[in-house]
């Protein structure tokens, strides 16, 4: 089978820091096929797509193109070998025209002076492929679907034989998705191959020839699409065995309503009619990637503009700013540790004390002894390693950075704690520590909202779970009575219903 493969990989492994994202993946892409890559959130499908396109470097494994083993594999090499990648975030120059973007780096020139033939060349290319766009339109004035066509034309202009599409339908309408599928089929009929990374099961069943399922960074199997159904795919994605993680015991003994949200609407799609969390209660939000879970959290805390009312312990927040929310006792552990959570240029101690500077100072002067004592206490409580008060947090592992980030909020006296992906990219030990601390906080009467793309984590932690689809809370479930597979099936169902409504 690997003899006639256009692109094949063996034993591909990828590590980010100390976390293994992919391991031992074998895959063959045949000429003229549409090959689907699916898996649960975090299963590694997107990572594999990026490795194939040369965007991520594999930590181990071999890549063979047309029978030739590649010694190094990056985006330029991939392009030279006829493998192009279309990113989720499109990589186009907004100020250039369509034609200029398509032929970026391939411009015809005489001694470096442009001949300006891009528009004419694009006409020929569009003639061949059947994709139509105005060659002289400015890229920034086009819709996402049109910009994707530019990316595809760009791949064709480079005579690519394999095109990796990473979640291409995330921001497309139903008719645009159909159009993209038609384009994929015509590419296939010309003998090119498309690698289609997506979490939309209907799409993948409709258009692909073969499907590879990934789970926890490993390949489950590759099979012909003809024999697959939604049910077989979901069960392959989840696997038979249940991961054995211990979650803290759930308390059913809740206090008064601490957080109350009404008619929260934000421009990026959040629409929450009613959400209440009692003291000591852990509420979970589960949804597929892009369902708008983090956006709900950002709207509650005031990081994004929104309308509607947010009350903390009966007090209405009027200014809806982050500073006001923090003062009222709502804190958020953001999903992006490096970007939004930690200040990498400051030591562990200073990161922990950052939200509590007023309490740790007198007359504006830092109380160093108290600050160190606080940091040391939390380092021990959360088992941060290395346990150095002034440790350089930028050199810590993901799990220990996450512990510092959570410790930062344990120090104060939060009333509402929002955790967005509390254990993403974290090893098993750190994960348990983090879960234990979440449980301990709840037992102290804190109202907690947990957001995670790992359904199992939400079910394990929360006493009530809401399913999120397109920024809305579409369903409330009892996590102890519903299995992960049922939740996943329900999420895909809601997604399908949304599609049909459009």
């Amino acid at each position, binding site marked *: 089978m690997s003899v006639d493969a256009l692109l094949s990989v063996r034993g591909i492994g990828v590590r980010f820091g100390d976390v293994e994202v992919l391991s031992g993946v074998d895959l063959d892409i045949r000429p003229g096929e549409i090959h689907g890559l699916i898996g649960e959130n975090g299963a590694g499908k997107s990572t594999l797509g990026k490795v194939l396109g040369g965007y991520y470097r594999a930590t181990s494994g071999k890549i063979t193109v047309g029978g030739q083993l590649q010694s190094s594999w990056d985006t330029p090499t991939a392009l030279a070998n006829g493998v192009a990648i279309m990113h989720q975030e499109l990589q186009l120059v907004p100020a250039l025209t369509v034609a200029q973007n398509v032929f970026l780096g391939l411009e015809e020139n005489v001694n470096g002076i442009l001949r300006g033939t891009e528009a004419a060349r694009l006409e020929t290319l569009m003639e061949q492929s059947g994709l139509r766009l105005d060659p002289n339109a400015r890229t920034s004035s086009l819709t996402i679907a049109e910009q994707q066509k530019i990316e595809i034309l760009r791949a064709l202009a480079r005579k690519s034989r394999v095109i990796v599409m990473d979640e291409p339908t995330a921001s497309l309408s139903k008719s645009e998705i159909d159009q993209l599928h038609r384009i994929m089929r015509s590419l296939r009929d010309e003998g090119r191959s498309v690698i289609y990374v997506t979490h939309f099961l209907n799409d993948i069943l409709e258009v692909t020839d073969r499907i590879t399922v990934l789970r926890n960074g490993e390949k489950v199997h590759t099979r012909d699409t003809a024999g697959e159904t939604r049910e077989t795919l979901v069960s392959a994605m989840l696997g038979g065995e249940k991961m054995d993680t211990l979650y803290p015991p759930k308390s059913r003994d809740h206090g008064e309503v601490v957080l109350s949200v009404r008619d929260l609407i934000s421009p990026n799609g959040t629409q929450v009619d009613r959400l209440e969390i009692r003291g000591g209660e852990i509420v979970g939000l589960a949804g597929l990637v892009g369902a708008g879970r983090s956006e709900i959290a950002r709207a509650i805390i005031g990081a994004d503009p929104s309308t509607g009312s947010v009350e903390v312990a009966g007090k209405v927040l009027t200014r809806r700013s*982050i500073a006001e929310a923090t003062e009222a006792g709502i804190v958020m552990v953001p999903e992006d540790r490096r970007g939004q959570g930690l200040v990498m240029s400051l030591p562990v101690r200073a990161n922990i004390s*950052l939200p509590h500077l007023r309490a740790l100072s007198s007359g504006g002067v830092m109380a160093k002894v108290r600050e160190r004592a606080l940091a040391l206490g939390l380092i021990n409580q959360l088992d941060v390693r290395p346990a150095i008060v002034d440790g350089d947090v930028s050199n810590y592992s993901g799990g220990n950075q996450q512990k510092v980030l959570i410790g930062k909020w344990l120090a104060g006296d939060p009333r509402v704690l929002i955790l967005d992906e509390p254990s993403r990219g974290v090893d098993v030990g750190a994960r348990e520590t983090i879960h234990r601390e979440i449980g301990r906080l709840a037992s102290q009467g804190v109202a907690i909202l947990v957001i995670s793309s790992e359904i199992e984590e939400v079910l394990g932690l929360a006493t009530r779970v809401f399913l999120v689809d397109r920024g809305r809370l579409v369903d409330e479930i009892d996590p102890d009575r519903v299995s992960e597979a049922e939740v996943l099936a329900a999420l895909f169902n809601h997604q399908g219903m949304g599609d049909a409504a459009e």
Partner: protein
Amino acid sequence: MTRAKTLHFLQNYAVLILIALLVVALTLLSDSFLTGRNLLNILNQNAPLAIMAAAMTLVIIVGGFDLSVGAIFAMGSVTSAWLAVNVDPYLGLLLAPFVGLALGYANGLAITVLRVHSFLATIATALIFKGIAVAVSDGRLISARIDDFTWLGRGKFLGVFNSVWVMVLFALVLTFLLTRTTFGRRVFAVGGNEEAAILSGIRTNRIKIAAFAIAGFAAGLASIITTSRVALGQATAGDGMELQAIAAVILGGTSIYGGQGAVWRSLAGVFLLALVNNGFNILGIDPFFRDLTMGLIILAAVGISALGQRR
């Protein structure tokens, strides 16, 4: 690990090592270098720049640049001399730093309210401040040969020039502010990761405004020292000092990307450049090579520290 540690040490203290090397070299090459008189002169001459660089450290740590401190210096020079001549010498000395504070505050507002990058905003405000300085002085020199005015720049206290005392005191206050207070911690946090600071409930705009106000105050303070020393107020005073101050801060090892740095580093940066200058003078080398040498030194120092910042 020892090699990595050595490299780290070199990067951390590059500016001090360079100063030490220069001091040794100049001592060997000339008898007139290592004299109390010469060293005191170097300190005295560079005190105003050192004061500005010390405050510029805060602006750069918070993630900004202030290209208007030269113009604020000019405003300080003109207003202090004008007040000294027309109203009262002491009022001139007292008021100029606060004029600087107000202008720096205006910079901060322009940056945070209009959401313009500080680089652009302060290019614009520099032109505005300079224009006002020219208008106030009517384009002329304002002579202020009054003893009650010139004592600050010319006098000594305990055998050391007043300017040096002011510089040391100011640098100590800023160091305390930066390393021991909540304000200082917030400055580092805003420059290191503004998003994280916002999510920690810090009002980042206030911190930025304060940093720019302090830079303005420092420019005003520096200007009264120089103005009282030369007994002249002029709208061209301070030309180019903003770039010298920024160069000194970076030379000292404060990160140009914000979030890291120290006041003492900027003083060291100022005096490294001052020593090079002094060396050229006492050794009688063609000044043609001076800018060339300074440029190479800055490039080398910045290059060394950049080696360590590949995260």
